[in-house]
């Protein structure tokens, strides 16, 4: 709160200074800039470099940053503190100096030169915070250089796509420097990047590929855990999709651009994007982030196994492990797909296309694995179909007014058996699956029996009621006849 208030005050002050100065002292024409004249005469490297600076061409004088009076050719006057001379600005002063023009405000020259307010973005960024807490932190010149600043599209600029990796790595690969700001932050991003597909293409001169700023943004760089960050888990797919879903941009790379749409429809995508389940994988969970590359066929199982550990363990011991490796089939993907991973269904264990078993196995009597596949599907169905059928029996009993709460409650434990069986299927062994399914099948049988007994009890009650009603009604009739008999006799005695 306090920091935000200071930041706002700082920005406002800079804006006010910028506006005041812009109105009071319009940019001095270069011809009258005595600073430049004098320093060029002395072959100052800064002055020579400044001739090529993007600012020089737009009339920004030395004094606009360093202060002083550029109209005076008297050094004592021009560089006197009375005339506002500050010399080399301190690092933490630099954003304020640049912000005079690149900060907030609606002055005419900002519109003329299309100057955005990047000072506010920088102030809110992780870099801005670092500078606030440590005067040695990053500021404008850390990335853009000084005196020979060029446009981002100019290959001379340190932030040009061809240089931005090294520019960022200047600090982010420097463990000693980074320790002062975020000791826990890894410093191997550049190294990883160079191993990625992006990095390799970049090294080959392809500047269309993603660089640091493509994902992290430029002036408003935020921490990954900040929900506003483009690399916050729920934003990662959209960030990657900016390029990977753009068919025109990706033309020539020979890879599909449907991954994002596929992912959004997948069980992972729905969990992350619709349910905001941060445990669900985003692109970087499987491909890596700085070292992004598609996992090879042999490593798919390890990638999926990061979350699906039990499935991986069982698969590693299964017959499929060797068979798939021999045929260079990408493990999990063979049955579940990749970006468009759907919720696994028992229908996957089938000989009916497009079930994956049918890709290699035939149920024509020649395949010795076929009976096992049939048995395994049968076990899975015993749980799911059996559970549904038992629920129907229990519902029927409930509709008849019978209490089957215990049986219904016990069915909840079947779900655990279903989950364990669906994991055990990755062993592709009937015995393993039987072990996992047996408790669930027993519960289903017990609940089914309870439901049928309840229905039987209902019928018994109705039949019992019918019998008792008949008996009582018979007694009523007998009693009525007896009363009439008594009363007739009494009448007879009276008369």
């Amino acid at each position, binding site marked *: 709160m306090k920091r935000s208030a200071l930041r706002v005050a700082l920005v406002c002050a800079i804006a006010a200074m910028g506006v005041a100065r812009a109105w009071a002292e319009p940019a001095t024409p270069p011809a009258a800039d005595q600073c430049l004249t004098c320093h060029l005469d002395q072959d100052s490297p800064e002055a020579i470099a400044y001739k090529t600076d993007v600012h020089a061409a737009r009339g920004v004088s030395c004094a606009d940053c360093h202060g002083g009076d550029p109209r005076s050719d008297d050094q004592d006057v021009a560089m006197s503190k009375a005339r506002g001379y500050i010399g080399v600005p301190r690092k933490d002063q630099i954003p304020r100096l640049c912000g005079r023009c690149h900060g907030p405000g609606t002055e005419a020259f900002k519109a003329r030169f299309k100057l955005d307010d990047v000072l506010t973005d920088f102030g809110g960024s992780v870099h801005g915070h670092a500078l606030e807490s440590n005067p040695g932190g990053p500021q404008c010149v850390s990335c853009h250089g000084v005196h020979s600043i060029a446009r981002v599209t100019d290959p001379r600029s340190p932030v040009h796509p061809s240089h931005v990796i090294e520019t960022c790595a200047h600090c982010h690969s420097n463990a000693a420097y980074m320790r002062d700001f975020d000791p826990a932050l890894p410093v191997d991003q550049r190294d990883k990047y160079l191993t990625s597909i992006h990095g390799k293409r970049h090294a080959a001169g392809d500047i269309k590929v993603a660089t640091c700023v493509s994902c992290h943004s430029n002036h408003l760089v935020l921490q990954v855990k900040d929900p506003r960050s483009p690399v916050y888990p729920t934003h990662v797919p959209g960030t990657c999709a900016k390029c990977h879903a753009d068919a025109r941009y990706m033309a020539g790379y020979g890879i599909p651009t449907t991954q994002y749409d596929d992912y959004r429809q997948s069980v992972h995508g729905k969990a992350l994007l619709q349910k905001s389940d941060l445990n669900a994988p985003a692109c970087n969970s499987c491909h890596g982030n700085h070292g992004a590359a598609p996992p090879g066929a042999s490593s798919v199982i390890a990638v999926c196994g990061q979350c699906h550990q039990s499935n991986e363990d069982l698969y590693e011991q299964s017959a499929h492990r060797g068979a798939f490796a021999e045929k260079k089939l990408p493990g999990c993907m063979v049955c579940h797909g990749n970006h468009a991973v759907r919720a696994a269904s028992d229908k996957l264990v089938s000989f009916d296309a497009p079930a994956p078993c049918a890709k290699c196995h035939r149920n024509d009597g020649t395949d010795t694995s076929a009976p096992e596949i049939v048995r395994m599907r049968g076990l899975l169905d015993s749980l799911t179909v059996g559970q549904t059928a038992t629920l129907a029996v229990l519902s029927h009993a409930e509709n008849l007014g019978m*209490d089957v709460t*215990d049986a219904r409650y016990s069915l909840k434990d079947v779900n655990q058996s279903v989950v364990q069986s669906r994991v055990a299927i990755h062993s592709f062994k009937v015995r393993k699956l039987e072990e996992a399914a047996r408790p669930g099948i027993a519960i289903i049988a017990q609940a089914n029996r309870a439901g049928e007994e309840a229905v039987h009890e209902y019928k018994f*009650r109705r039949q019992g009621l019918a019998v008792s009603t008949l008996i*009582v009604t018979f*007694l*009523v009739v007998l*009693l009525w006849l007896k009363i009439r008999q*008594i009363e007739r006799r009494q009448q007879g005695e009276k008369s």
Partner: protein
Amino acid sequence: MTERASGPMRWIRERFNIDPLIEFASHKQVPEWRGSFWYYFGGVSLFLFIVQVVSGILLLMYYQPGEKTAYESVRFIVTKVRFGWLVRSIHSWAANLFILSAFIHMFSVFFTKAFRRPRELTWYSGFLLLALGLGFGFSGYLLPWNTLAYFATKVGTTIVAVLPGVGEPIMELLRAGKDVSTATLTRFYGLHVAILPAAFTLILGLHLMLIQTQGMHEPEPWPGGKPRYMPFFPNFVLRDLLLWLIVLNILAILAVWFPWELGSKADPFGAAPQGIKPEWYFLFTYQALKYFPAKLAGIDGEVVGIVLFGIAGLLWFLVPLWDARTPRGIRNRFINYVGITVVLFIIVMTALGVR
């Protein structure tokens, strides 16, 4: 006749002289006229009370009061105990039919002016029996410790609290604390199985003794001018028995076709279910209180309503005192109008409450 008796009767007679009782029963007569039908509702109420006592004792074998046991034990009764479902359902249905039968009995006594001298004590004791029956219903409703019972008890006991001065202490006395809790359950259990049955049995004994000694009220004047009687034994007793069997049949059909639901266990921290209502026999009071404005002459409307109901109940109880014309044999239409108004009020308010 006495000389000819043998076997068990002789055995009893040798030990206890029952001849006066047999003599009394054989000579006792019951007026026989078009209103005689209403006499049977006293017997039906008695029968339903006996059914409740028997089924209640059976439930007692398994019921365990307590926050963690009340609901579970009732669930055990209706699901595991052989015929437990039937016993519980019959107990609940018999309770409701008892209240209905007792109301019918009370109004039949009122409209036939059977409360008049010398039967004032019978009226007072009968009124107290009905009040105790309502107490049975209110206390027994909470015992299964289900959601509806919990919140209905909460609402019911809160109504008392609006009475200025005495409301809060009465509510706390009923609840055994500030809120409905396990302590309330224990208190209601004690009321339901010990205090109320003891009080009820005593007053019922007095009520039956008064009826037997004073005899049934006779119509005044007799229709047709000529009194007619039927012997109490065996004619009236057998007819009573016949009606009891029919009621037993109705009870069995209701218990099997419409078993009393248990619902979900009460959660004191849960939200009250929507449309929570008291049992039907309290519904007319509950509904009528809704129509009272928030303030009446500067007094809380609900307080006015409860006080008015209290006064009305007291006047109803004391009707033998203020109905001065009927005992003198003067036709009194006013008392009929009062009765009809009360019956219509109860029917209309209950119907509105059920809707």
